């Protein structure tokens, strides 16, 4: 199931979106998410659909990849649609099945919310698929840095995110090792009652946490030994460069947003 989740995964490439500054992409996605929730007309969603197709061509991400990634979201979308269809009772009754009646507004709300969810997952997935995690954290650090004057620890937050991303594969490797070690001692993670499986999971989680804490302590020593002292006076190897394509993208998205807001009912 988890290999099908595309949010958070990065797919290296050389597309227009890959070459964009991550700050522009984050700003664009945040703006689009706000607009997605403000749009309430079919024209608006039709335009959004067109934009989604255009962005897909600019991303260079294979379609099968997106289809595979969107599939798990469909379950949530269908559930959301039926919740609205069953419980919103405004407007005329469109049709009835047994004791259930489906109202015009319920169907409309269900479709709108489903489209919003799909578009939200689609755009955020394209953001992470075309932006490396380190670029994302660098961009977030820079975008949050004005808040440092209000004591917001932008640098520390970015460092924490960067370390968390760095340790995901390492912790997965560690989990695999512990599973093998516990399986060799008779633990079974796939068979037995729910209680047996929970017990087996405890034998996985306890050593994983112990090792993670030990690792965290060692890492803290290693960082301190290399002079880590927070963000003050620090220079950076990676530079984010804002180019023409970033300005163009932000302008186009702003115009797009204004048009969509005009189409609101």
């Amino acid at each position, binding site marked *: 199931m988890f290999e099908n989740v595309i949010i958070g995964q990065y797919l290296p490439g050389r597309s227009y979106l890959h070459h964009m500054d991550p700050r522009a992409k984050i700003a664009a996605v945040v703006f689009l998410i706000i607009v997605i929730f403000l749009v309430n007309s079919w024209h608006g969603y039709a335009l959004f659909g067109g934009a989604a197709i255009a962005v897909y061509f600019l991303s260079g991400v294979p379609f099968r990849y997106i289809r595979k990634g969107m599939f798990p979201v469909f379950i949530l979308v269908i559930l959301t649609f039926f919740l609205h269809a069953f419980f919103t009772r405004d407007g005329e009754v469109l049709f009835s099945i047994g004791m259930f009646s489906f109202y015009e507004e319920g169907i409309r709300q269900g479709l709108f919310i489903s489209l919003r969810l799909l578009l939200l997952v689609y755009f955020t997935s394209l953001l992470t698929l075309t932006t490396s995690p380190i670029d994302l954290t660098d961009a977030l650090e820079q975008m949050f840095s004005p808040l440092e004057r209000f004591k917001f620890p932008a640098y520390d937050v970015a460092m924490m995110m960067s370390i968390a*991303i760095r340790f995901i594969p390492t912790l997965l490797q560690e989990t695999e090792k512990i599973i093998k070690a516990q399986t060799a001692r008779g633990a079974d993670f796939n068979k037995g009652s729910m209680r047996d499986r929970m017990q087996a999971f405890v034998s996985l989680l306890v050593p994983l946490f112990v090792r993670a804490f030990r690792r965290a302590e060692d890492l803290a*020593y290693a960082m301190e030994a290399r002079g880590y002292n927070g963000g003050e006076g620090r220079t950076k190897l990676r530079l984010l460069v804002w180019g023409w394509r970033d300005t163009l993208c932000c302008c186009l998205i702003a115009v797009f947003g204004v048009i969509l807001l005009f189409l609101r009912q």
Partner: protein
Amino acid sequence: MAIIELRELEYQYEESDEKVLKGLTKDVHRGEWLSIIGANGSGKSTLSRLFNGLSQPTEGSVHVLGKNTADDKALQMIRQEVGMVFQNPEHQFVAPTVRDDIAFGMENAGVPREVMLERIKEVSQWVNIEHILHMEPHRLSGGQKQRAAIAGILALRPQVMVFDESTSMLDPNGRKEILETMSRLCRESGITIISITHYLEEAFKSDRIWFMKAGRIEKDITTKNIPDQLEWMEAEGMPLPYKYQLYQEVKKRRIDMRTLRTMVEGE
């Protein structure tokens, strides 16, 4: 000339009743390769963390290039001058790629970006990791990880490098790579090396050895004097490297070299 001076050094962990280090007064000389050897719990790893102010002594002092590690203002300079390579190569990687990790210490020190790029190129060539600069740490072998960690420290241009059991989690090839790197660092670059180890054969490659026992430096010998100390080492239960075991046997049985040759050829 002393680069690190330990004076009446004592250390005690808060949760413990007993001192881990007891009244150490010693000097580490500029440009030498010093090995510190001892059993688990003898205090050698604790001592290594005192060299660059990662821990502070309970009593006494540690001076690096004349600066006290207890002086907060000097600490940043001390940590640049005394680099540390830790035991587990996996636990010391901060950044998602080798290149970013080498840059981490320099970023902390405020080194300009152009200088960083030059130094990354230089040190990666020196430890032969140019081909893995783009890689994530979990894709590297143990030896590559340790060499990448060494590159990250070398980029800071330290005068001293402390290796805290840095070969203990490596396979024989990885160990050989790191020992060769240590030797080159000391002999070619003039960097003072302090190597904490469990292995006598590693310690015998250095210039001087401190034997630690129960928080004290039991013996301080130069490796030229190894033959004189072999009996003491055996009495202390230290497993001698094979060639020294052979040397001891030959000496004990008073076998002359011609007889030994006849014996070996007869086999």
